[in-house]
């Protein structure tokens, strides 16, 4: 299943996972898509991310609906970059942050 255009990117695989862990064949809700876009923008505008993952392209997202939106893990993003693949987990946080060591990214609501 492909995600809707996220920040103008197409071809992004998407998995929406229900609270019991089973896959759902549904579309992202509008606010969920907006959150993924915010996380993606936050990462791509971060200098450390740009340095560590040159030419990163979003290739896959998972939405784990069983995880609260303020917990790292609800929003999973995978990027292909020049020399490999990396994973990040996004969530809502009190302040925007990017932790490339842990693969965590927080966006403010």
């Amino acid at each position, binding site marked *: 299943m492909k995600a809707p255009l996220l920040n103008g990117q197409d071809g992004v*695989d998407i*998995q929406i*996972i229900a*609270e*019991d*862990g*089973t*896959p759902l064949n549904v579309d992202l809700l509008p606010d969920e898509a907006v959150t993924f876009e915010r996380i993606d923008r936050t990462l791509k505008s971060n200098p450390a991310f740009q340095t560590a993952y040159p030419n990163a392209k979003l290739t896959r997202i*998972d939405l*784990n609906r*069983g*995880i*609260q939106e303020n*917990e*790292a*893990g*609800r929003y*999973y993003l*995978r990027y292909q970059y020049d020399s*490999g*693949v*990396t*994973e990040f*987990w996004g969530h809502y946080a009190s302040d925007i942050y990017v932790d490339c060591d*842990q*693969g*965590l990214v927080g966006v403010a609501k």
Partner: protein
Amino acid sequence: MLNRFLITPARSAGWLLLACFFVTSSCLADSPIVPDAQKTPGDLLTTDAKVICVPGYTKTVRNVPQAVKVQAYRNYGITNRKPGEYEVDHLVSLELGGSNSIRNLWPESFVTQPLNAHVKDKLENKLHELICSGQLPVQQAQQEIAQDWIAAYQKYVEPLARKAQTAGTEKPAIDEQPLEASNPVSSSPDQPDSAGNCPSSSPIKVSKNGIYHVQGDPNYERTHAKNCFSTPEAAQAAGFRAPKRSTK
């Protein structure tokens, strides 16, 4: 797009039941959780053997956040657990190119017998070795471990069960290779060397007082082993105990 796998749960369950039949009469108490094909089909980060065969590759892959681990337990209905009873494991391990997506994670027991996370680790190491020595295509290894890791274990490591016990009656061995020969969960001890050190295949040291010590234990290095076991569970099964302040 990277492959995703379809597991046949009936196949895994069948192997499990078969293993249980031959190993123990109290199977249900000893069964690990088999990954659910819907919840944990397996998921890949890479299919490039050159990537995963670089020494230290897995250290470049992230750790799974705690909230994701908690969700993995919830997905399988595990609400209570003892320390050291489970790990949230990757169905396709990181060393075989697996991802950290929750679709590649499930809670796997450390303590069930004969199948548990230690046993699966042995399979993962074997498959990695075969891939990196050019003897097995990475995608085949990924597919086989995702589809049925128990069958893959029997194919690449060793047959599972040799003895059947039903209603207290020991049945003849069914396979030619004895389980105890290399099974990591066997309770048969190995012998230490003359300095009291244990081999890397059986690193658990048992002291003359019948206390076993795991690597990392403060007394491990100075313990002069009388027996060696592959796992703490095996040492316990043989009647030895952990130190009272063990961090195991």
